[in-house]
């Protein structure tokens, strides 16, 4: 067996490259800006010098002698004719210049002060405090000094003219002068550089002014050959060409003794090119552009931001053993399962190590090849795609070589078996906002091309089936599988840490179904009861005639005792009992009350929460599987539909609504008259106009409520839409009253709509009209249809809603990112403290009370009422 020696990173130290180090690591000096000659061969000492690494397959590297995949590439270097500032350190250099004397290079502080600072620095390090903040303070103090306490030289103010020009007392400093100054500083300060947050062991200040520029290997800037045979170079190569050209010209001009002015212009140009080579988005200078006008993507651009190296290639990567496709529902699989299409299952594999115990079995498996012949009646059998031999060789299994490979299989090989039923996989839907966005499921191989999932797991993933796609990952190690099984399986996430309640539960039709089944005292024939119960997986006795409540009781755990108000309940306990809205479950029998959202719904389901807490996750999962199937069976048996006629209301109700609206209009006219005549009573702290607006808003709000009330008075629990709204399956009574009654006042920024034309919202109205219609009151219902002006106002209100959601999601997304970055190193320790990974204590007791919200009862440590009830009854 092959065991690789393990190397552990102990620490990483960042420092500066010295000019000598750059020359030392360089494979060649680069002098010509040209890349290839006429025959297409790379020019020696050019930017594509063969010593910088190999890019063409088959060739060997001139420096290390290795082939394409093995050679990491080698750096070259450019000798700069004149030194230039490194933009990345412009600020650091500025701080050093401000804090030191140009004459003697020492800190502009007295020896005593420095001595004290050394002590302070030691303390800052010991307390694990911010040394950068300390350095800032040192610079702040030193830069106030006007005369050097060491050599007595007058200190002129240093300015930084962004991005890279320094001025001393208004006179421009050349990079060469800056470098000289910094040399003096490193000489004079030595170990005291630490006071400026510089580690002298790895960085000397003068190295921040470049005299030699490292040229990255060709492998970091590969050229692309277009179909036309034309070569297209990388942006970095282009930039390096610019640098070499200007460098050459500068050298020639300087050596020829050209006028100072020309040399300085070229020097500035070289500085510009080197600056944009590092960062092409430096503020204060125009970005370097490609011939086409596109800004070049230079070093900083490769690393920065969402699409940069860190966020898109290091923190997040593309992975193998994963799949993505559209999702669709399957009420027949468990919440713990996920349906995987056969085509995907044949691509995804699980590695299995061959041992003396399973070798025969594995041989049989490999013999099947990648496309096993299926015996009649079998829909799927896993095959094998690859076999990895003990020497590490990977052999592709084909139908032709399968027999052969199987025969030669030996202990220690790894067989990559295709996915089969029961394999544990991770399933994920973006955006992954909470831990329930990625859960472990058992695979179930199914025909067709979509991932199938149980409807009850839609809420944690926030998934629907209007085209949503999800990702699936196959775990590759035994540890990963064990961990996923114990920690990540769907059933372990029924209770959410978000609010200490169930996040997985029945939705939509499951709730409607159970509501219809248990509402009132419906009696079902033996046949119907058997149909419903069989669908829910119940096996046992069924009476001749059963009420819906009795049927539901069959799937409850036999020792369940609960009492609570149903979602249907609107008033007090007494009132609820009359409406059959107070649920009483005794010894697993539903004696009273209707089952709705409050009992079994996702986010709300009391029964689910209770079972999960009392009996464990397995029981809860089984209950959810049962209750969803029961709900669907019930709604199928009873029958359910909804349509536009659910919003039909009788003529008389229509008249009443009309009357309410007319009254509201009149009231508003009265208010406006009172306002115009100055009789309106002003609300304290409001202007007269504001008072009027508020009063009108109040009237229109009331009018909508009244119309809704009239409408709902005529829509009872025989109405499908009402059943859905009242049981919590879908929609609300407000939705219904807007459909049947009136839509109501439209608002933008919480005010009636008032903007548009001069003095009016639309040209349909008179200038200065303050009436209901002119300011966005929609008196029509959705069913009746909106008038053109109403429709326009409604669109205005609707647009605001859309804009708000768009703004909210982007802002909360960024906030979450910042929070996660700030908290990622914080850990809950075994002693209940919350600590930084470095050991500093953040909280002495997690959340002050040490309670895991997942295991809490809706945020509280215990449900005292329930415990008292339980104890009393026993």
């Amino acid at each position: 067996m092959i065991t690789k020696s393990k190397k552990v990173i102990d620490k990483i130290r960042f420092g500066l490259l010295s000019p000598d180090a750059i020359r030392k690591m360089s494979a060649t000096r680069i002098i010509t800006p040209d890349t290839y000659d006429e025959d297409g061969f790379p020019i020696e000492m050019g930017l594509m010098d063969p010593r910088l690494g190999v890019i063409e397959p088959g060739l060997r590297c001139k420096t290390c002698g290795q082939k394409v995949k093995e050679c990491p590439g080698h750096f070259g270097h450019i000798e700069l004719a004149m030194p230039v500032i490194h933009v990345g350190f412009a600020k650091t250099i500025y701080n050093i210049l401000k804090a030191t004397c140009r004459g003697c290079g020492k800190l502009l502080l007295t020896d005593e002060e420095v001595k004290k600072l050394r002590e302070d620095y030691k303390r800052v390090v010991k307390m694990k405090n911010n040394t950068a903040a300390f350095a800032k303070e040192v610079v702040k103090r030193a830069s106030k000094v006007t005369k050097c306490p060491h050599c007595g030289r007058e200190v002129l103010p240093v300015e930084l003219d962004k991005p890279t020009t320094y001025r001393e007392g208004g006179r421009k400093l050349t990079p060469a002068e800056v470098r000289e100054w910094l040399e003096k500083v490193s000489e004079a300060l030595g170990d005291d550089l630490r006071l400026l947050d510089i580690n002298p062991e790895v960085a000397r200040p003068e190295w921040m002014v470049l005299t030699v520029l490292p040229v990255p290997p060709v492998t970091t800037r590969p050229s692309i050959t277009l179909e036309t045979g034309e070569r297209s170079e990388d942006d970095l190569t282009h930039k390096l060409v610019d640098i070499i050209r200007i460098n050459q010209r500068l050298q020639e001009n300087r050596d020829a003794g050209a006028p100072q002015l020309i040399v300085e212009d070229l020097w500035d140009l070289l500085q510009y090119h080197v600056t944009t080579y590092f960062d092409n988005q430096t503020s204060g200078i125009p970005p370097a552009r490609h011939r086409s006008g596109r800004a070049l993507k230079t070093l900083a651009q490769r690393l920065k931001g969402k699409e940069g190296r860190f966020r898109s290639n290091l923190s997040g990567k593309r992975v193998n053993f994963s799949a993505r496709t559209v999702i669709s529902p399957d009420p027949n699989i468990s919440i713990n399962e996920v349906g995987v299409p056969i085509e995907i299952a044949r691509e995804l594999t699980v590695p299995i190590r061959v041992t003396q115990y399973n070798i025969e079995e594995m041989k049989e498996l490999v013999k099947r090849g990648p496309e096993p012949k299926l015996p009649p009646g079998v829909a799927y059998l896993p095959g094998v795609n690859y076999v990895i031999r003990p020497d590490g060789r990977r052999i592709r299994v084909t139908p032709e070589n399968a027999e052969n490979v199987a025969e030669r299989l030996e202990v220690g090989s790894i067989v990559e078996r295709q996915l089969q039923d029961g394999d544990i996989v991770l399933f994920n839907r973006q955006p992954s906002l909470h831990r329930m966005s990625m859960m472990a499921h058992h695979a179930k191989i199914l025909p067709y091309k979509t991932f199938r999932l149980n409807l009850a797991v839609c809420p944690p993933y926030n998934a629907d089936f209007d085209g949503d796609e999800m990702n699936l990952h196959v775990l590759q190690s035994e540890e990963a599988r064990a961990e996923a099984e114990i920690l990540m399986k769907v059933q372990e996430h029924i209770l959410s840490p978000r609010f200490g309640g169930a996040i997985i539960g029945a939705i939509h039709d499951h709730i409607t179904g159970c509501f219809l089944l248990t509402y009132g005292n419906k009696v079902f024939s033996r046949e119907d009861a058997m149909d419903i119960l069989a669908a829910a997986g119940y096996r046992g006795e069924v009476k001749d005639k059963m009420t819906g409540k009795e049927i539901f009781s069959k799937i409850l755990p036999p020792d369940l005792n609960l009492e609570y108000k149903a979602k249907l309940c609107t008033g007090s306990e007494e009132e609820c009992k009359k409406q059959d809205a107070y649920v009483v479950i005794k010894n697993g029998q539903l004696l009273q009350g209707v089952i709705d959202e409050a009992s079994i719904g996702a986010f709300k389901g009391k029964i689910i929460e209770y079972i999960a807490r009392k009996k464990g996750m397995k029981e809860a999962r089984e209950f959810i599987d049962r209750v969803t199937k029961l709900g669907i069976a019930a709604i199928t048996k009873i029958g359910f539909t909804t349509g536009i006629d659910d919003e039909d209301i009788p003529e008389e109700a229509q008249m009443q609504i009309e009357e309410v609206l007319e009254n509201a209009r009149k009231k508003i006219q009265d208010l406006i008259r009172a306002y115009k005549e100055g009789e309106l009573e002003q609300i304290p702290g409001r202007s007269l106009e504001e008072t009027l607006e508020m009063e009108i808003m109040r009237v229109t709000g009331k009018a909508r409520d009244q119309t809704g009330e009239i409408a709902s008075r005529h829509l009872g629990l025989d109405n499908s839409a009402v059943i859905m709204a009242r049981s919590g399956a879908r929609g609300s009574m407000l939705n219904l009253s807007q459909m049947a009654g009136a839509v109501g006042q439209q608002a933008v920024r919480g005010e009636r709509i008032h903007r548009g034309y001069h003095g009016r919202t639309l040209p349909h109205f008179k200038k200065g009209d303050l009436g209901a219609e002119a300011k966005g009151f929609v008196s029509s219902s959705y069913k009746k249809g909106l008038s053109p002006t109403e429709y326009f106002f409604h669109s205005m209100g609707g647009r605001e809603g859309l804009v708000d959601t768009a703004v909210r999601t982007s802002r909360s997304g960024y906030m979450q990112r910042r929070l996660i970055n700030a908290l990622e190193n914080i850990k809950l320790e075994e002693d209940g403290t919350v600590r930084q990974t470095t050991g500093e204590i953040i909280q002495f007791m997690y959340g002050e009370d040490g309670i895991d919200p997942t295991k809490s009862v809706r945020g509280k440590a215990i449900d005292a009422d329930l415990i008292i009830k339980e104890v009393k009854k026993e």
Partner: protein
Amino acid sequence: MKIDILKHTLVPHHEILSAEEVEKLLKTYKIKKEDLPQILVTDPVVKAIGAKEGDVIKIIRRSPTAGESVAYRLVVRKEII
């Protein structure tokens, strides 16, 4: 007239730990003094109770979740005085 801030409703109870108590505290959490949360000597309450740099302060707060919660803080100077 000066107001006694220690009596203000929003100021929790602060007290200075004795050397033995500090020793015990560090031992129970298996930490060094530096791992404690910090509070500046210039903090009004620290001045009011007369704590010095290097002292450890025990703070007892009313907590909406736990009823009462205890925290400790190490008195420190600003980075440079």
